[in-house]
């Protein structure tokens, strides 16, 4: 059972750029920080105005006591406004939201698979996995070296599309090579990234019958299951769609269809 979402006024502690268009915003939000679990997100009101109107969802990237961090790229007006934040500014947060990663089921080695900004939820997840003494290997991919963000990750293996850092190729190829070479006992994959990457990894994991959880993103208005704006197609009988915000953002690879 996860905590009920809270509306909080969080105070900006710091904003720093950690890569080429990768930003980290650290917020003082003690109640959300206390209740958050890895894989959950916050829905952020980027400005106290009606334009832009809707909140923006961001993974909780890291927890440090009473503070939490979110990681983002500037991709539109909402994220651009976030880069105007200065220490002491107040940001309205709704959270913690969504279903966390399942770290209680039986597995031995955690394989973290991140593409681009999909790295966002993993420093927090690795904090918790570390506490459980789970061995961790982090596979991080990006288009090019400056898009890699590995802060807070351990045992990192990199891949870039252009070969400017790590293996030239995809992060899925990197994972496949590792599994074939190391043959870890009872691995579990935790993945987040662009849809084409998640599609490829999903197929790989389902074919090899590997435990695999995918963290998805979706355009959403409310973040709490009301607006029904963020459907993802389910496999199997029953309801055709699940909602990214409340049924996810973490899903078992075999329970959803990515298009």
């Amino acid at each position, binding site marked *: 059972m996860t905590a*009920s*979402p*809270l*509306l909080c006024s969080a105070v900006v502690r710091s904003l720093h750029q950690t890569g080429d268009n990768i930003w980290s915003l650290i917020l003082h939000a003690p109640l959300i920080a206390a209740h958050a679990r890895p894989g959950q997100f916050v829905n952020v*009101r980027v400005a106290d105005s*009606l*334009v*832009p*109107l*809707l*909140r923006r969802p961001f993974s909780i990237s890291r927890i440090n006591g009473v503070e939490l961090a979110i990681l983002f790229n500037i991709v539109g007006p909402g994220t651009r406004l976030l880069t105007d934040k200065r220490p002491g500014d107040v940001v*309205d947060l*709704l959270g913690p939201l969504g279903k966390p990663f399942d770290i209680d089921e039986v597995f031995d080695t955690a394989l973290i698979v991140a593409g681009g900004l999909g790295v966002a939820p993993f420093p927090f997840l690795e904090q918790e996995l570390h506490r459980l003494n789970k061995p961790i290997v982090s596979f991080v991919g990006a288009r090019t070296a400056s898009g890699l963000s590995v802060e807070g990750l351990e045992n990192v293996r990199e891949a870039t599309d252009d070969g400017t850092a790590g293996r030239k190729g995809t992060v899925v190829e990197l994972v496949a090579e590792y599994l074939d070479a190391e043959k870890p006992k009872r691995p579990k994959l935790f993945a987040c990234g662009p849809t084409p990457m998640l599609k490829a990894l999903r197929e790989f994991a389902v074919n090899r019958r590997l435990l695999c959880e995918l963290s998805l993103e*979706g*355009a*959403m*208005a*409310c973040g*709490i*299951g*009301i*607006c*029904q*704006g*963020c*459907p*993802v*197609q389910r496999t199997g009988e029953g*309801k*055709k*769609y699940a909602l990214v915000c409340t049924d996810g953002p973490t899903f078992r690879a075999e329970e959803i269809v990515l*298009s």
Partner: protein
Amino acid sequence: MVKTSFILRGVEFRNRVFVASGTFGYGNETTSLLDASKIGGIMTKSLSWKPRDGNPPGRIVETTGGMLNSIGLANIGVHQFIGEKLPQLRHLDTKIVANIAASSVDEYADVLTLLEDQEGVVAYEINVSCPNVKEGGLNFGTSCPKTAELTRRLRPLTNRPLIIKLTPNVTHVSEFARAVADEGADAVSLINTLIGMAVDVRTRKPRLSTVTGGLSGPAIKPVALAKVYEVAQAVKIPVFGIGGIATAEDAIEFLLVGATAVQIGTMNFVDASISGKIAEGMAAYAERSNVPDLGSLVGALDANVGFSVLQSWL
């Protein structure tokens, strides 16, 4: 103390602020965020006879000061609503208005009849105005004879208040309001969303999977006010004003043009506690203005003495 309550067909609502259908779920998702005792009532998510999956992904897009949606009436169906949601809703300290959306007159009648036996539902809002489904919705809502026929069919089935939710996507919405008033509707609510569209110029594709959808949010408030004004001039039954309300002042504007009550929609997504704040703000406005009863503001627009230049414009 300002009087904020009003009565509709014998049902007393504590104040004039409601949450609009589809923007508050079934009422149980937000119990940690909104004190339900601060609002007049909850319009439930639209209920149909069977569950509906809704439309494919690509359901919402933000636009300037608003949003487009194409949810497609995704809902759990009236049976699951009665079994799972209503027992929780009954415990909330506010009134529950069941919103019904169906694809035939018979289905509307069946859903309403099933809810008739249920304690805790105090009124019905009939959605004939969803722009995002092929059958039902706008099929009814843009045909005045069909809207009237539906009202005629439903009226004898219930003694509870019957509110017809109208679409603005017609030439003269007041004709529809007049038609349902003549058939015995107790109130109308408007506006449902305006048909709108957005395009991704990079891919040259529509941003919604259904190409067009419904526009809501602060961007539509001026249109909504004009439609509510038009309808309030045309009918004697109460009007629930809906469309882009974000503040207590916005809500007061709707009262002044003739709305008896208002519904808060899209802004619930931004701040789930906003309807309570708006209700408090309306009472505070009345207090400041020495108005002992919010009801005396309904239709109190001073339309005969030119216009007023808003200082706040600067």
